[in-house]
């Protein structure tokens, strides 16, 4: 029965007992248990990655009013395996003049930078890798390793278009990292901790998406840009600069860029769920009532988390398949002229209100924060509207001038 309430520690304790029974030193047994746990987590992430290929293709098909893969296996479920086998057996062509070592490290680094995120992702209150007390910055750090992988890929391909695509993509990713890091301060202030589990536990009363919807929206936008997905994917635009930084990659190396991007998107869906929607918990205090105590069960929490992460992933896919691509100068202007100042305003607002409203009961606190966000949103829309009107008038005057002459 103890297994049902704390599976990871139960199995770890049992395995530890067996290993020390065989005469192994305590620390070595611990290391072996860590290795087993790590392998389980990574295998889980990889299996999820494979299923995500299927999910992606089915969803994009439905958005485009067609069926998607349905020939191979029931509902096309074997399709991703066929894809993987195809990628493995394709010839791996290394372009002439490519810097071999860097060329080979790039896809490995791109995939690893996503896999290491699973070390801090809590799937349930007792199923997670580590609870690092600087978990949020760890997320940003893994993102910067991904940025490095893209530069390496673009440069080592010895190809103008790859380098150009890589530069644009990196300029895009680093620009959108700023609003993301600034918005990550908002859950930190609201939960008073930087650890991912702490933030999840702090949402047991009310979701942070309700306390600060603007923060959620800004994080969603910068996460999509950071992932390099549409509508921010000018850099891999298949129709424009021919796939950007991964032109010269074929076979499984390309496969890792592609699979890495999908897993990254899902992981970010998971982080959105954790940071703003309560992760594996967030039942508004319902789990404290005796009748609902089964909500504290780690397996139930795992299901809740995966569901929320899938929903986050679905929103990211929805935005990808509904919106046209944005031009690079619009992307960067949007970030530096709109998103960053807005993120700073939201941060300052949250910081001030967290001190001013601290003595109110929970519903007063929540309402105060929520309405301050709505107020900021309305003021922003008014400013944008005035700016748009000014621009339209200026353009109208210009057209009239040209027409008169």
């Amino acid at each position, binding site marked *: 029965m103890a297994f049902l309430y704390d599976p990871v520690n139960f199995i770890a304790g049992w395995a530890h007992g067996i290993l020390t029974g065989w005469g192994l030193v305590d620390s070595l047994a611990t290391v072996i248990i860590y290795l087993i746990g790590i392998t389980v987590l990574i295998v889980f992430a990889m299996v999820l990655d494979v299923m995500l290929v299927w999910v992606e293709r089915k969803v994009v098909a439905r958005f485009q009013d067609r069926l998607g893969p349905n020939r191979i296996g029931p509902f096309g479920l074997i399709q991703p395996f066929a894809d993987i086998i195809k990628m493995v057996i394709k010839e791996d062509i290394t372009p002439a003049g490519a810097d071999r070592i860097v060329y080979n490290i790039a896809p490995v680094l791109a995939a*690893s930078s996503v896999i*290491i995120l699973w070390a801090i992702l809590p799937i349930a209150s007792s199923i997670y890798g580590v609870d690092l007390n600087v978990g949020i910055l760890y997320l940003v750090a893994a993102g910067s390793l991904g940025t490095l992988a893209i530069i390496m890929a673009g440069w080592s391909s010895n190809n*103008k278009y790859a380098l150009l695509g890589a*530069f644009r993509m990196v300029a895009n990713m*680093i620009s959108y990292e700023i609003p993301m890091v600034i918005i990550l301060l908002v859950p930190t202030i609201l939960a008073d901790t930087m650890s991912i589990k702490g933030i999840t536990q702090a949402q047991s009363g009310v979701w942070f998406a309700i306390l600060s919807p603007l923060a959620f929206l800004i994080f969603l936008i910068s996460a999509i840009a950071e992932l390099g997905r549409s509508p921010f994917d000018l850099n891999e635009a298949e129709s424009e600069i021919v796939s950007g930084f991964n032109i010269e990659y074929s076979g*499984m190396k390309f496969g890792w860029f592609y699979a890495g991007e999908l897993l990254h998107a899902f992981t970010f869906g998971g982080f959105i769920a954790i940071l703003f929607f309560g992760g594996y918990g967030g039942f508004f205090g319902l789990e404290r009532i005796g009748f609902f105590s089964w909500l504290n069960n780690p397996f139930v929490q795992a299901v809740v988390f995966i569901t929320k992460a899938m929903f986050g992933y679905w929103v990211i896919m929805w935005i990808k398949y509904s919106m046209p691509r944005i031009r690079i100068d619009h992307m960067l*202007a949007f970030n530096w002229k709109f998103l960053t100042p807005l993120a700073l305003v939201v941060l300052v607002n949250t910081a001030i209100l967290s001190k001013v409203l601290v003595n109110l009961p929970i519903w007063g606190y929540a309402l105060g924060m929520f309405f301050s966000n709505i107020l900021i949103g309305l003021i922003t829309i008014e400013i944008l509207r005035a700016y748009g009107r000014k621009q339209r008038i200026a353009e109208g005057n210009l057209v009239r001038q040209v027409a008169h002459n």
Partner: protein
Amino acid sequence: MNSESEWIYIGLFLVIGIIVPIVPLVFARIVAPRKPNPIKQSTYECGIETVGDSWVQFKAQYYVFALVFLAFDVEAVFLFPWALSLKQLPLFVVLEGVLFISILVSGLIFAWRKGMMEWV
């Protein structure tokens, strides 16, 4: 888990996280055909022969964006300890943070007015 064993876990995770992508690549190297010839290995340029060296025209914009990013990245990192100290200390601490942020926002506005935020 104390801090030390946490980092050992993360270190092991990193090692295995690097090995896992390498395994299919090694497998592919064994299984996939390898028939390199000069035409296949030539650089791709929309189907025609390559023209000129592969270098990118220097655009000051890339560097300026990277520098502005660096300044704001360091600022954001400074703000994390500030954010953690808000609960215990009085409102005055929030204003110190606002001062910090506003100094850097003035830098952003300066860059904006100088036209550095245009991607020409």
